[in-house]
């Protein structure tokens, strides 16, 4: 690459080591007699890896993401991002994409994507460069003047992703970002996510309830139990970095999803019945 790094990549990427360290995290909502969402969760994400979390509904996946991002302070346990403690404030360098449409309806696509950058006080030329690049990268360039209300759900999610991207996060957390989309759009968005991951070199943690998505996109997949959530198994997919949705034809893909389901089936039934793990 030239003297200037790609617009979306942070200078620190490419280094080795742990990006995210979650140690013995337990979280209970609502005080002593509340709901326990997480039970002694441990997780270490390597820099640059693509990690996916799957688990039955209500198992605490979203809570895990909120804790990792610093949006929630866990009842006990520790979270470290690049060796710095995370407590109650979202550290710079972490980008988050939520499941619901979080685009600001009162701003155009361009202003939405530029929002975080403007606030950080970059000079206008740099802002323009990054926003244009992100819009082109996410296929939104011709919609820059549109408002979210005029776009489809998938495009609005792309706006949210672009908005996160321009801040050059080293860790990208996604909470079921494609949950509200139809299957075909999901597959295409999954490919875009992979492209993005390769381009930025960031660490990615994707929460999903779709086995296919986890198996196809991730380097490693963590399986959570029914509530209170903890990791019951972690699988390594072993895919090459350059991959797309075509790998579903690989024989290993079928074996992977079968294994995932085998682990997950009992937990899902537990969750459905409302049992505790």
């Amino acid at each position, binding site marked *: 690459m030239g003297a200037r790094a790609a617009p979306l990549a942070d200078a620190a990427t490419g280094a080795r080591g742990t990006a995210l360290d979650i140690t013995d995290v337990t979280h209970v909502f609502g005080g002593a007699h509340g709901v326990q969402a997480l039970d002694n969760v441990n997780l270490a994400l390597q820099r640059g890896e693509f990690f996916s979390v799957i688990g039955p509904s209500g198992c605490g996946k979203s809570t895990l993401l909120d804790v990792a991002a610093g949006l929630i302070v866990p009842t006990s346990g520790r979270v470290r991002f690049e060796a710095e403690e995370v407590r109650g404030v979202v550290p710079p360098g972490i980008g988050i994409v939520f499941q619901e*449409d979080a685009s600001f*309806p*009162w701003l155009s696509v361009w202003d939405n994507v530029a929002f975080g950058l403007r606030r950080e006080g970059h000079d206008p030329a740099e802002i323009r460069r990054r926003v244009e690049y992100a819009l082109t990268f996410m296929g939104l360039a011709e919609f820059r003047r549109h408002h979210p209300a005029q776009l489809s759900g998938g495009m609005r999610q792309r706006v949210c992703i672009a908005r996160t991207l321009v801040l050059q996060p080293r860790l990208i957390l996604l909470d079921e970002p494609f949950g509200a989309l139809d299957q075909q759009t999901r597959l295409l968005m999954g490919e875009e996510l992979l492209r993005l991951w390769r381009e930025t070199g960031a660490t990615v943690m994707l929460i999903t309830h779709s086995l296919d998505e986890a198996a196809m996109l991730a380097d490693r997949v963590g399986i959570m139990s029914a509530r209170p959530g903890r990791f019951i198994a972690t699988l390594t997919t072993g895919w090459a970095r350059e991959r797309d949705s075509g790998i579903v034809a690989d024989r290993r893909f079928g074996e992977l999803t079968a294994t995932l389901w085998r682990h997950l089936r009992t937990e899902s039934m537990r969750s459905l019945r409302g049992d505790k793990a």
Partner: protein
Amino acid sequence: MNTRLDSLWFALAVIVIWQVLFWIAGEEAIASPFDTLRQAVLLIGSAGFWGHAAATFEAFGWAVLIAVVLGIVMGLTLGLWPLAAEVAEPIINALYAIPKITLYPVILLFFGLGVPAKVAFGVIHGVFPVMLLTMNGVRTIHPVIRKTARALRLTAVETIRTVLLPASLPEIFSGVRIGIALTLLGTLIGELFASNRGLGFLLLRAADRQDVPGTMALILLLFTVAALAGAGLLAIDRQLHHTR
């Protein structure tokens, strides 16, 4: 489907019904559309009228300013502080339901005769819709928007200024629209009682003198101003909603 054409038809229908009422009720109760219009033109041409109009709109202007600012600030505070909102809402609703005209003696006793009393009366009429609708607008912002503000590491002030206010602007504006109309009503009623200036006073004087064309001319003028302002505000309202 031309709305402007339809509005003309509507106005025509109103005039026709008006004229019929005049024929039924006679000139002691109501003035014909023509007489009313003629009187209104006379009024606008007369020297004294504009002095009174200015008095009313001065008080009205202050009342609107105070009601809107107070209403938005209080509405924002309650919208962002769930416990306070829950505690306060029934109290505010109960206050809203009091016939405020009966508080007028109280206000007069506190403020004395004159402009401050008129302004106070306008404010107590208009502040409630602004406050209630602002509060509701802020409360119903989708949680993911607020989460996003935290994810982008915005400070509290930045969050309010760049996210919460724009997000709830349509609702706030609806509250302001209704608040402005009610404030005008409050100011006018205020003038009925303890003022010797203002359009409300003119109205009272005309009614006392059994000056039917005069009374109706004033009402026509007031309603026209309110309707025009209302239409203008509604257009802005539509713009706000349109791009969302």
